[in-house]
């Protein structure tokens, strides 16, 4: 970060994340919470903000928020309060949003990072519940169109402390947060579809100084990549200004996904005055100790902890456990596989290469994967005990996925049973050596790499069924004479 001025600047970054909770109904009414329905077909008087309506809080949304608070090691407040955030906009039917302000639901948490082997954590200032707004679409010519289906869907807002120090760190924070949300099963974390949204605050301070710089805001970041690139752009922009002796002005920048750049928002006449006050239509929210204990006891193993356990229990590398724990479904699959096959290392290879590879090419989620861990385990055992070769195993895998048959059946059908019988292989080796005298001579003269050629010929003659290891051993011993 050193520039011509000789001053080092340190980025100070905070993230504000909104996650849509995957409840069945909306936050304050019984409308179905769905994505992609025909416009204005999932609304009722309450979420439409008709005269005379009142909000009623969704129990499951509260539980999910408490779950998240516990997973992020927050303190769950015994008393919290909904508040009105007042502003006019067409996607906000009451022209106020029911959110939380002075008394949020969860405070003082953290997200653990593990950047470059050195463990760090990012503080979570608060988590609170609020309702989503509708969707505004630009219509033809001089009108905009409003669809209220999304209006009222429950959101949690997660505010980090400004502990983040780089664009990469911000992206990692977001990845880990998303993983936790998915592990808990409370949000699908899809930035492109909008179930996970992220706004960023960036400021620079002089290295070694405590004085914070003016912070600017970045909005409309619609992917992890955008978050990282957008932050980097803003850091560069601010650095350039400061280097030239200029001042940072408090602005909001929008990320332009197409042009991949920051665009300054048209400045408003005045800053928003949201006139927050306690929501009079909702009494205070009291969370009992009992409920917290119950939710705590039902928390699934969290991703970071699971990664650590995988390394210790299964002897996996940091990289392997990172990949296997990225999605809860995959980690679950892996563990079932290990239980059934008894071999963590083999299981890891098979899941990382074959299963994940198959999922990627088919564009499938692990939940839809047709080959259950039990059945895959049987295949792995066949390879481990050398009933079939490794390459044959991969063929069988693909067949099992395609047809749904068991490993044994596929092996039989394709005739891939590896021949390991020494006698049988010896006869084939004899034929190969007899038919390739020139290569035999060259091998005996020192070209030991031709072993692979001989093994290949044995595989050809045996229709791929010979155990290549055994064949290799036999060839070697034959040619030593």
């Amino acid at each position, binding site marked *: 970060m050193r520039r011509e001025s000789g001053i080092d600047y340190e980025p100070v970054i905070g993230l504000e994340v909104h996650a849509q909770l995957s*409840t*069945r*109904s909306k936050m304050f009414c*019984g*409308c*179905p*919470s769905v994505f992609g329905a*025909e*416009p*204005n*077909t999932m*609304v*009722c*008087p309450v979420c*439409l903000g008709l005269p005379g309506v009142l909000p*009623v*809080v*969704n*129990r*499951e*949304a509260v539980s999910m928020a408490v779950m998240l608070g516990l997973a992020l090691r927050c303190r769950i407040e015994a*008393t919290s*309060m909904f508040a009105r*955030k007042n*502003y*006019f*906009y*067409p*996607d906000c039917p009451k*022209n106020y949003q029911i959110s939380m302000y002075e008394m949020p639901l969860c405070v003082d948490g953290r997200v653990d990072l593990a950047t470059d082997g050195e463990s760090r954590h990012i503080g979570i200032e608060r988590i609170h519940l609020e309702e989503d*707004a509708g969707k*505004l679409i630009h*219509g033809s*010519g*001089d*009108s*905009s*169109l*409003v*669809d*209220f289906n999304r209006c009222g869907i429950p959101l949690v807002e997660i505010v980090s402390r400004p502990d983040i120090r780089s664009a990469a760190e911000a992206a990692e924070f977001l990845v880990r947060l998303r993983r936790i949300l998915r592990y808990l099963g409370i949000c699908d974390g899809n930035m492109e579809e909008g179930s996970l949204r992220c706004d960023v605050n960036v400021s620079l301070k002089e290295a070694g100084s405590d004085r914070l710089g003016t912070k600017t805001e970045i*909005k*409309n970041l619609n992917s992890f990549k955008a978050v990282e690139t957008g932050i980097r752009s803003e850091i560069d922009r601010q650095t350039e200004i400061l280097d030239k002796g200029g001042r940072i002005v408090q602005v*909001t920048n*929008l990320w332009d996904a197409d042009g991949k750049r920051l665009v300054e*928002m*048209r400045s*408003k*006449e*005045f800053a*928003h*005055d*949201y*006139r927050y006050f*306690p929501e*009079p239509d*909702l*009494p*205070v929210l*009291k969370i009992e100790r009992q409920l917290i204990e119950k939710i705590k006891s039902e928390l699934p193993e969290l991703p970071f902890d699971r990664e650590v356990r995988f390394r210790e229990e299964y002897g996996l590398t940091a990289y392997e456990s990172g990949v296997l724990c990225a999605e809860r479904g995959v980690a679950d699959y892996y563990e079932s596989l290990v239980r059934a096959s008894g071999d963590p290392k083999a299981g890891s290879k098979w899941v990382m290469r074959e299963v994940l590879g198959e999922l990627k090419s088919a564009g499938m989620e692990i939940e839809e994967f047709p080959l259950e861990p039990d059945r895959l385990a049987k295949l792995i055992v066949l390879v481990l005990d050398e009933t079939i070769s490794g390459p044959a195993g991969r063929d069988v895998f693909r067949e099992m996925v395609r047809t749904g048959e068991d490993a044994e059946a596929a092996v039989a059908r394709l005739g891939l049973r590896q021949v390991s019988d020494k006698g049988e292989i010896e006869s084939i080796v004899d034929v190969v050596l007899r038919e390739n005298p020139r290569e035999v001579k060259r091998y005996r003269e020192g070209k030991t790499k031709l072993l692979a050629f001989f093994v290949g010929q044995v595989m050809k003659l045996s229709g791929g069924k010979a155990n290549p290891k055994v064949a290799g051993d036999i060839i070697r011993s034959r040619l030593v004479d």
Partner: protein
Amino acid sequence: MGLTDEELGHLEKLAKIELTAGAREKLREQLERIIEFVEQLPNVDATAYDAVYNGNELKLSLRPDEAIRCLPRDEVLAEAPGSIDGYFTVPAIIDSKDG
């Protein structure tokens, strides 16, 4: 404490109400007097303030997470001053949402 014309303008923007030129001055005066009137609030040392949010010791009851009723779309749009293809229409918005 008075209410200046500028302050009144600020309130108009916050409340999204356009006052006619003729009504403004009269309203400003009236508001000024009402503010004076309500200013006479005595100072109270009530520290048990948080108990007053809602002031009625009501308990917040939570609703089970069940998807139930929806309005049929024709009823949703029945009172709309402007609608097209199932959407509500408003004058075109140029800038993106803030807040």
